[in-house]
């Protein structure tokens, strides 16, 4: 099956361990680098497969009207599990929501991802468990592939796989690079 998971899943230890059924259902991967730590966010359009991987999923995530359920695989089992629901398209200027959850499944923080214009940064607002604004308009900028802070070979590997997928199967995988402003954080998003 020509899924993101099957082509790119082997590039990270956490996705390498996923079953073939889960890899088949993988629609997107987000390679993340935060202050020297690399992790991966796994995305699917199947809420039940999502639940089988993520474990405890709050209703606000499970019942979201989306085809893009995401969880940071490396956060599962920690005291701060990161889950996301990305909109299929930009809706009312919002591209998605993030939820930080305690190990007991309680939401402790919510993030709102806003998009103002094509070339403008993604703006992120953070709210605490009570809906009180913690911070607003944190900028996630469109970046160049040279601005990936993690292992540079990952960029080359992704490009090589994308070209091979195109030439062997005429399958196109998109890639987007972003970084946080004034933070040592960058992301590579691979999608179809």
């Amino acid at each position, binding site marked *: 099956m020509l899924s993101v998971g099957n082509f790119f899943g082997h590039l990270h230890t956490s996705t390498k361990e996923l079953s073939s059924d889960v890899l088949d259902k993988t629609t997107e991967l987000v390679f993340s680098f935060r202050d020297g730590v690399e992790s991966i966010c796994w995305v699917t359009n199947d809420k039940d497969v999502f639940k089988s991987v993520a474990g405890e999923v709050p209703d606000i995530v499970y019942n979201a009207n989306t085809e893009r359920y995401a969880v940071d695989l490396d956060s599962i089992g920690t005291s701060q599990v990161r889950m996301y629901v990305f909109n299929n*398209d930009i809706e009312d200027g919002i591209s998605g929501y993030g939820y930080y959850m305690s190990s007991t499944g309680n939401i402790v923080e919510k993030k709102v991802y806003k998009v103002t214009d*094509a070339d403008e940064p993604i703006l992120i607002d953070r709210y605490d468990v009570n809906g009180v604004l913690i911070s607003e308009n944190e900028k996630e900028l469109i970046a160049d592939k040279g601005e990936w802070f993690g292992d540079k070979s990952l960029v080359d590997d992704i490009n090589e796989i994308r070209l091979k997928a195109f030439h062997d199967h005429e399958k*196109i995988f998109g890639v987007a690079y*972003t970084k946080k402003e004034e933070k040592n954080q960058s992301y590579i*998003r691979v999608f179809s």
Partner: protein
Amino acid sequence: MALPTSGPLSLNQIHVEAGNSSGTVSSLNSSSIRVLLNPDKGANQTNSISEYRGASRDVSFTYELIGGGGAGGVGFEYGGGDGTRSYSGSTTTISGGGFSASSSGAVGGRHGQIAWNVASGRGGASSAYGAGGGNTANGIAGAAAPSSSYGAGGSGGGGDSPGSYPNNDTAGSAGEGGSAASQSTGSGTVVYGTTLTISIGSGGSQYTWNQLASDAPSLNGAGHKGGSHGGAGAGGYAKITYKGVDYPFTSNGTLTLT
């Protein structure tokens, strides 16, 4: 029209068939009428009127030709095109002695025409002689059509995926592959000694994204973004066959039919 194969046949009839004026001086040894013999015996050889029965000064031939292929459209890093096309190929012609045949050059592919996540349509079209340039991945320049694929189209340049998915506004569309010219075949007849002139159409030249930014600054993010070049189309071709011999042309030339 060929001389009769039976019945009366005069020297004057042979003289006229060879392209001379009726009633003017001639002889069987004249080079002006020996040309009707195949092969010409040469000067001071014995020949007779009967050897000219069925002879004709007309020379028949067959031909095939094809114009140049269109170049691929430029791929965009940002946005899409407005339907404008890359360079067209030019026409291949054979002409002379009142005969003419031609095959038009093919149109170029449209710039920024294919969505970033669609693979089909980026390759150049195949001609009767072979494949065009292949499909092009995003971020890659389109390939030229193989030179032996006369008249085939060049590849469109690759596009670019959205920079902040799912915001597709930031994506760039790929170039469309160039079209292929149509092969034309047929036959013709010209007078002995006619020189045919063969003009081979060139393929559409590579269209660079820098050139497009200059030609149409409003496209591709107002010209401030990068892009991927469209590949060149293959040049045209012509072949004339007469008396069982092929005469191929990949560049301009002449051929005298005797």
